[in-house]
């Protein structure tokens, strides 16, 4: 038992945090992942002038109804069907792999991206409870730390598969992820300089009081200093977003699984649910990354003229919806970029990360610091 908490406080803490965890993971993020996959297929189909998955509805005719339920655009049952398919497919472990690590790798790819979500403030308050699973004072560092552990899943998948393409894919992917982690780290520093805290809750609160960092006019007319600070913030936003694309292995940075060279990269030898865990991990990381961008630059759950959760439970829910609405817009941007830009070559990727992003982000840190130090 925690010594400084009374027994009832302790169980209240455990109960609320479990409720928040389950709400966040199973009711928001995992459904969001499946419908991001669906959206990705529909949007890419629309961009390539074809229809994409538009048939699968919900088979309620099995329950005695006359017709299957297929609302709106059709195909909305596709993610559910896919999930069932992943579970029913043959769970095949090839004979040439290193078995224990082959099983461990998909879990290690999936778990960090879920654990990262704990520090994200996805709403203000709801019925007096803070809408963040764990209000950490080192929130942003926690996210970087846990996501840096995520590379083990990929390294191990590549190594334990005992096969050429996964091995090369795993090595490439790791190198790419650690290279862009630097850019990510440097691009976050200007935000911390301005907000003066590593706590994501405090960074959000700063933006509620002073306007979103990227759109400072959301809290009234900005002064000269705010307008000057806006320049480094925009640069930081651009570099941070580029690095986030590279971290999540999305096009134009999907070198680790570029099908023309490496078949499917580190998960070439995987099938059924083990493959699905990599897939889930990747998309969850994408959602976590978008959430981080929203918290750092786009004001978190805040929206002009909408009160926070202290004004009633309804507004608490609205704040949560606003947050995930912003995340959804960013996810659409991820998909849009995928079908707009061609893939980089590996030497171009490394040059972009280590020469351009690194230098721009580093200079940008001192630009921000200089503006804060030498203007009034």
């Amino acid at each position, binding site marked *: 038992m925690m010594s400084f908490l009374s027994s009832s406080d302790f169980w209240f803490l455990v109960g609320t945090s479990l409720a928040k965890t389950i709400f966040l993971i199973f009711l928001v993020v995992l459904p969001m992942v499946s419908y991001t996959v669906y959206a990705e297929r529909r949007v890419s189909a629309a961009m390539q002038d074809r229809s994409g998955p538009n048939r699968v509805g919900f088979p309620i005719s099995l329950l005695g109804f006359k017709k299957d339920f297929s609302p709106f655009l059709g195909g909305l049952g596709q993610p559910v069907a896919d999930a069932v398919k992943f579970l029913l497919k043959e769970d095949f472990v090839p004979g040439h792999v290193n078995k224990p690590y082959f099983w461990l790798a998909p879990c290690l790819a999936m778990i960090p991206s879920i654990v990262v979500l704990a520090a994200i403030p996805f709403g203000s308050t709801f019925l007096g409870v803070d809408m963040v699973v764990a209000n950490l004072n*080192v929130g942003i*560092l926690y996210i970087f730390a846990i996501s*840096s552990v995520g590379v083990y899943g990929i390294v191990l998948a590549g190594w334990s598969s005992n096969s050429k393409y996964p091995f090369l894919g795993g*090595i490439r992917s790791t190198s790419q992820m650690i290279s862009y982690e630097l850019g990510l780290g440097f691009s976050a520093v200007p935000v911390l300089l301005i907000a003066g805290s590593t*706590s994501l809750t405090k960074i959000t609160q700063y933006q509620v009081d002073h306007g979103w960092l990227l759109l400072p006019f959301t809290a009234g007319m900005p002064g000269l200093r705010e307008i000057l600070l806006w320049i480094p913030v925009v640069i930081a936003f651009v570099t941070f977003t580029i690095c986030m694309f590279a971290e999540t292995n999305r096009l134009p940075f999907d070198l680790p699984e570029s099908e023309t060279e490496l078949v499917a990269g580190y998960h070439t030898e995987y099938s059924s649910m083990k493959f699905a865990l990599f897939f889930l991990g990747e998309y969850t990381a994408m959602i976590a990354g978008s959430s981080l961008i929203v918290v750092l630059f786009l004001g978190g759950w805040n929206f002009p003229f909408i009160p926070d959760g202290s004004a009633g439970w309804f507004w608490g829910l609205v704040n949560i919806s606003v947050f995930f609405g912003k995340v959804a817009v960013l996810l659409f941007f991820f998909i849009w970029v995928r079908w707009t830009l061609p893939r980089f070559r590996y030497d171009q990727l490394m040059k972009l990360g280590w020469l351009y992003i690194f230098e721009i982000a580093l200079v940008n840190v001192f630009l921000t610091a200089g503006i804060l130090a030498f203007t009034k």
Partner: protein
Amino acid sequence: MSPILFWVFALMMLVFGVAVVVNRNPVASALSLVVSFLGLAALFVSLDAFFIGVVQVLVYAGAVMVLFLFIIMLLDLKAEQRRKLNLAAWAGGGLVTLIFVAQLWAVLKRFPLGRQPFPALPPGPHDDVREVGMVLFSTHNLPFQVVGVLILVATIGVVILSKRELK
């Protein structure tokens, strides 16, 4: 932090620390070390040293161990697993450990501060990142600059060591 969690994480550290040495497969050893580091980070957190705990994960588990894994992957693992136990090396290693523990014991016994309980933290919220920053840039500014020189030396070392292969 409750004593139960302390024991869980301390035990986790020790078990996986032993596993690092005992495992014949270097990849398993490296992964055990990662788990051990995670346990250490949890112990730092239990001492209200959140910043150090998180940096432990970020730098050791996230960066240093990735390099280790890279290097291990270059090794011929089969040859490594076949290698016989070297009795002399085992005995030597054990002896060094014993001497080290004895020395630690001797030092701690004579060191009065070592027997004092850890001073309680001031009550109320405190931001340890801020406190680290305050100390680092006021009283420890010179050591901080020296760390910069140290990292510079390491950077140059990396480039020189790999120069032959780079050409």
